[in-house]
């Protein structure tokens, strides 16, 4: 295994020295391509007050290939499925090597603020969201309380 690419080292340094508001990303001790991430639910969203855990992995081809990100905390969101996979264009075909871990995490934070039920990954959630937004938001709040608060799993 060749050494860690300098870019990953640099990104890690910057993530630690200039953290983003409401986001933390810590590299794993044993694998520096693996990050433990937490994102605070954005203000004025049904996820407010929750602390969501994610895992982020930088594949061998990074930055030519997008990082792999997954929610470890259960979340009721039309673009995030039961096992935590995220539907976000920049993680798929819209990925660009000029994007960084920081930009990816910011985009996920933004996705929590603005769910997009028209481009769903979790179809049932998206359907609920479109049919009865108020009810869906209520459920999302309940899930946040249940799974993302005070160390809840």
């Amino acid at each position, binding site marked *: 295994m060749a050494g860690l690419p300098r870019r990953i080292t640099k990104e890690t340094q910057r993530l630690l020295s200039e953290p983003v508001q409401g986001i933390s990303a810590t590299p794993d001790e044993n694998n520096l391509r693996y990050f433990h991430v937490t994102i605070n639910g954005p203000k004025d969203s049904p996820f407010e007050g929750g602390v969501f855990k994610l895992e982020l992995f930088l594949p061998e081809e990074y930055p030519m290939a997008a990082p792999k990100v997954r929610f470890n905390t259960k979340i009721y969101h039309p673009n995030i499925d039961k096992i935590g996979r995220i539907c976000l264009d920049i993680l798929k075909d819209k990925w660009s*090597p000029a994007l960084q871990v920081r930009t990816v995490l910011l985009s996920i934070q933004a996705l929590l603020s603005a769910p997009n039920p028209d481009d769903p990954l979790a179809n049932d959630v998206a359907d609920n969201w479109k049919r009865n937004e108020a009810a869906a938001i209520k459920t999302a709040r309940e899930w946040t309380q249940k799974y993302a608060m005070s160390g809840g799993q």
Partner: protein
Amino acid sequence: MSEIHAMLDASNSLNIGADSALLLEKSVSVNIKEKLNLKSKLTADRQLLKTIVSPQRQSQKSKIKLELRSIVKEIAAKVTSSEINTEAHKVTAVIATLLGRSSSKIAASSKETSQGSSKVFTGSFPAMDDFSCQRCYELLYDPVTLPCGHTFCQSCLWISTMQNCVVCSKPLKQEELRLYRFNIVLVRILQKWHSVEYKGRSLTEKGINHLSKQNFGEAVKVLSEALSCVPGSHMALLHRAKAYYFLNLFDEALEDIFKVCQLAHAWPEAYYVKGEILYKLGCVEEALIAYFISLVLEPSKVCSRNKVRKILTQIIHHTEEREESDSKSLSPICRSPTNKKRSHGSCSTSPPYKLPCHLSTSSKDVVGLLGASDVFCEGVGSSNEVEEKTFKYLPHGYASELKIKSEDTCEMGSCLLHSHFPVDISYEEIRIKLEQEPVIDEKGQLIPVHLTPELESEIDRLLFNTESAVTRDLQTICNMSFNREVAVGGLLSISTTTLQRNVDQTLIDASDFECSLCMRLFYDPVCTPCGHIFCLLCIERCLDHNAQCPLCKRSMHHYMANAAESMEKLHPICDYVTKNIINQYLAVQLKERQQQHEEEIEELNQAQPIFVCTIAFPSVPCPLHIFEPRYRLMLRRCLEHNDKEFGMCMPVPGKPHHEVGTMLKVRDVTFFPDGRSVVDSAGFRRFRTSDCRVQDGYNVAKIKFIVDRKEADVDMIEQQMTVVYNDAVEWFTKLPVDTRTRIKSHFGDFPAQDNKINTENGPDWLWWVLAILPVEDRVKATILGNEDLLKRLGIFRKIFAILKRRNTER
């Protein structure tokens, strides 16, 4: 005759050199001011000029005068026959003579220059630094970096008709020019490091825009603002001069244009504008000098040529009229020394190029300044007379005498508005243009050409047999005039001092030069058409995966196609300005970055790249089509850092690849615009891999070469080889014709029997036969990895036995 003096003035000043050219400018300026009833210190300037003219030069002067007189005659003749400069070599000759050199010498020295000989003069080369536009010589404004790596102001690219890059002469694709966006990194740096000057440039462009919309008042206002930011901006001054001109503020226009001619004393456009202003003022002689200098500096400048032609025509026409009506009034100064000999004071046989003596007034002053006291001044008489005449013919007098028509000024106006940059027109076009505009006198008749045989021979003699010293500056200008690529830039020489813009050290920040892909200092920066900069290796790798800019997603197909056209070097060309700036201002950081780069290359060499695709054999050709992004990267690296070699292994399920493989040597590559390539390679060494891993997407491994064991019983092996060879030939000849043709087209002809024993790979033909045998690749790989030639031959015999049996069974 006055032109003779005028040209003489010009030539003297040119021969003396740049400094005195400036002084001459000044003196002429003073002269004009005098005419405009401005008080002057003419005598002081005379003294100054006299001190500059060395005694040596003085002795050469009469000779130069002789030459110049004939040039003027020639030009006058050519002008009236509307044939001026139809052939490039004639222009060469004229310039050669003007500069007092033989044309062959000039041609030779221009060649030397282009070959980069030690005789290249750099003295009056335009003073620029990395922040200057190489076309307008001002600070880069809205910089656009072309695919050739050179950067120009956007306006310089758009307004002008630049056909080739003025630096590298690479042809420009006009239809693509407007697609290029500003170099974003450079814009930021220019705004940050040179904020005041950049603002001045912005105002200048605004002013030029006002001028082109004929908002002259607004143009003056904005350009004056620009000049308060950058007092020495020749662009702002030139255009303000134009604006003043259109506002009929000739005094101010003159002042500006004199400054421009000092700042850029070899800028044809400046002399042209100067000519226009002077012409408008009725200072026809000075205008003629200016037009003529402009023409000499840029022989293809149509507007200058037309003006010279027009004025000379007017003068000659006028002379002829006057000659008829009042031949006695022509003073003896009209006579050239040669003609003087012939006619000996008699006006009856005077030459056809008589010019009105009263036109020589102002230039007489200049001649006087230069201390000329020979034939030319003979006829003038006492200096008192000169003074008298000088004031007798004030601007209005000139205008009326020459009957300057109003359409002249109209034409001049349009030319001023549109000649912001020199138009690059071929001689052919000029010729056509001139033919369409024959020289017609006021009665609508073509003016006849007078060129006596004696005069012709005299011109020939002068044109080709003259030789005199030229100053460095002039030679450079001259050389440059012949170098179209440079001359097309229009602005040949600005100042003899080198420019070094000051940069506030506290503003220098390496993070302004950070590549968004590797997050480090740019290494070999490349600028995309969308104006984004990346390290060469970074952007190349991105383009392997996706033909769009990583930052703005703009398509890069076009760019890649262009790069593929000039793919000798494999890579797109770097952005020289950014590279130079980094070199100069971030030397320490660059050194560190370079070290990293070298370490990375070194790291690549730790393991062999392995192309997992098929089975290859020593000495057998292996054509490949490379399209996968990871292998594009691998191929580029192999071509550059690995002696054009890489390993080839066949895929094996459940493993990275088969452990046995063959090194391939690239013999030829053809790149396609989309980044794919076809590689012609051939195998040469066998190897076994260990430590297989993936690096940047492709496989790499440590390799150990497979070498045949030493054989003692050579005779026995030779026998065996002959048996196998004959078996192989027999089998091959029994194959269907089309199969054989296909094999031959892919692997080449059936090889001759070479009896290589105790070499690394044994006989080559055996590998060729193995390559074409209808045997599973798995079996072939086993044979490939075998180090025992005798055993291999045994396997071949068994195979052929089986194949024979199959054939007979059928």
